[in-house]
């Protein structure tokens, strides 16, 4: 099959799933509306026709039940890929994920690894209101025993599934809702995607923007604007939220000495807080300005478009935060 030069994030994700289904008969998909409906966000559209009901399984509307079934299948030797519609709904399955998937390998002295992959959509930007738009990545990144990733690029979306299925640990894959329609070029880098490690998305020397997920593109927009002011921003895409790649973040901070962390999660107890503290612990003497954070306003995500956009860590807020680090009025 020849791949088009430009594809959407949705298509890249689907290709990753399809490749996994073709490569390993133990791999199957399960989740709400993923088969006949083609997936709530149309990621799995067409896969039912190609692979059949045995491998593309629609489930009842019970997150706890079908995530638990996925964990059981993984324990039984399968390689299930479970789709939870949004991270908001995943809270219903939190017990299965945190108390069961994350613990069994440890509690059994390594006898029972749980190689389940759980995909879930995350974030705001599509006017889906407060119960479908939140960013709870930090909740999962808190839990030992889980691996947490969030592809933000076409290549990462295309390549992450192979890496996730190769892991003996449960992997949570976050897919930003607002990126499914994003188009981009698929490159050979998609074949080299690893489960761990951050990546410098844009090299620069003036300030480091540490981010992940959909906020990567907010940072890219901010960096282009800042470049016109003569501020050369470096963007670090965390990619993997557990474990966090301190080395890449710190290497960038040592170079630029200024950091803005951009996080679609709420500020309080956020991944931004965790990253900031790691920078202080390991790079205090390299800092030339206080660490700044740009996070989502601490409100349930509003439904009206203008309020939703105002709540998110948009490019203007990022630019203002960067300017303040340079002593300019922001």
């Amino acid at each position, binding site marked *: 099959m020849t791949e088009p030069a430009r594809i959407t994030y949705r298509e890249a994700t689907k290709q990753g799933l399809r490749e996994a289904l073709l490569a390993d008969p133990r791999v199957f998909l399960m989740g709400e509306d993923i088969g006949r409906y083609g997936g709530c966000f149309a990621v799995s559209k067409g896969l039912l026709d190609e692979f059949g009901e045995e491998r593309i399984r629609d489930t009842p509307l019970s997150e706890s039940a079908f995530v638990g079934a996925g964990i059981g299948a993984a324990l039984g030797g399968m390689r299930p890929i479970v789709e939870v519609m949004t991270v908001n709904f995943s809270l219903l399955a939190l017990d299965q994920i945190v108390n069961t998937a994350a613990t069994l390998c440890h509690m059994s002295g390594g006898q029972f690894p749980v190689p389940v992959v759980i995909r879930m959509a995350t974030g705001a930007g599509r006017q889906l209101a407060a119960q479908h738009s939140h960013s709870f990545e930090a909740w999962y990144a808190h839990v030992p025993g889980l691996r947490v990733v969030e592809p933000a690029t076409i290549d990462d979306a295309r390549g992450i599934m192979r890496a996730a299925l190769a892991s003996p640990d449960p992997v949570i894959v976050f897919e930003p809702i607002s990126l499914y329609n994003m188009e981009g070029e698929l490159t050979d880098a998609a074949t080299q995607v690893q489960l761990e490690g951050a990546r410098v998305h844009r090299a620069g020397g003036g300030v480091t923007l540490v981010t992940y997920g959909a906020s990567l593109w907010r940072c890219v927009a901010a960096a282009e604007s800042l470049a016109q002011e003569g501020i050369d921003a470096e963007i670090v895409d965390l990619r993997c939220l557990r474990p966090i790649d301190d080395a890449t973040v710190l290497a960038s901070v040592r170079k630029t000495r200024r950091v803005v962390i951009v996080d679609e999660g709420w500020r309080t107890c956020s991944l931004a807080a965790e990253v900031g503290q790691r920078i202080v612990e390991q790079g*205090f*003497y*390299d*800092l*030339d*300005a*206080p660490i700044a954070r740009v996070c989502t306003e601490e409100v349930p995500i509003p439904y009206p478009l203008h309020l939703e956009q105002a709540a998110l860590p948009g490019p203007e807020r990022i630019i203002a935060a960067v300017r303040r*680090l*340079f*002593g300019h009025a922001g």
Partner: protein
Amino acid sequence: MLAEFRLPALGADMEAGTLVEWHVAPGDRCRRGDVVAVVETDKGAIDVEIFVDGVVRELRVLPGTRVPVGTVIAVLDTEAPAPAPEELPPPPRTATVESAGAAIQQRAKISPAARKRAQELHVDVASLRGTGPEGAITVQDVERAGPSPQPLPAAAEEAAAGMRAAIAAAMSRSKREIPHYYLATPVDVTPAVDWLAAHNAAVPVTERLLLAVLLVRAVALACRDHPGFSGFYRDGRYEPSPVVHVGVAVALRGGGLVAPAIMDTAGRPLAALMNDFRDLVARARAGRLRASELAAPTIILTSLGEASVETVLPIIQPPQVAIVGAGMVAVRPWIVDGRVVPRHVLTLSLGADHRVTDGRLGAQFLARIAALLADPAAL
């Protein structure tokens, strides 16, 4: 009214000092004479006292910063009403936290990276203007200032070199500006030695006295009678000091010396002087002298008796006008009532400023000290 508190000169040739720590925070009330800060100088760490009563409004210099003498280091409100004791509520537990927070507010803002870079480049951050957020000093500000011409030596070497330089400056100035005259005379101190032996045999160890303390008191009392030797020569004129503060030269173990004052020496009885003396020597060697003690001496007594020196020809420390030297106490053949007898003899000497006094007056001054030592019970 707001009063500026400037870094005082803690010695005639001090040009700058490094603030080591603050003992007060904004909101604290302090009284004249309270130790408010510790400043590192060529003479070691000095406790700096405040000159006015008031409430601290602002601390302007961050610990670790080196600032020139005369820099405003704090601002006080001298008219803040003193709280009446009965009205004073018990301080809330958060009070210290708040005042500490206020103190941090007043600190100069320097980024961690800039501070590190400044140390590497030996840049004095106190002289920089910050261009970072909230006026903070950044790495770029430090690098723009560039490295200082000479890398500073290691701290201990630096302190020793600093003190040597301070002594060099003071003594050079003294010899350049002050026309010294020198007098010396051997004094029979047998009465003092005998009196001390009897006194010390009769009292507990802690109350024993040293000959040095008798000398300090004799010099102080002689100064009362001869005001031309205890005071300061400044701007072409001499001002005798109304109160005599005898400075005691103390050699430091690491080399160098300091001469802190025993305050109001003439007004202190012997027992108190002994305590003062012991305390002063200990603090001088620990590098914890008070600023006022270093600046105060109106005359200095230097004793080289321990070094088995017969006669000291001492050099005046400007802006003082006289310095008394004491050599060793030795048993010498001495003529008393026409017979040669062994006596305890010490050579007293005087270095004095010819602009203020003449040799004849100096001779009378030395004779007065000798006379006082001859009647130790009256000291």
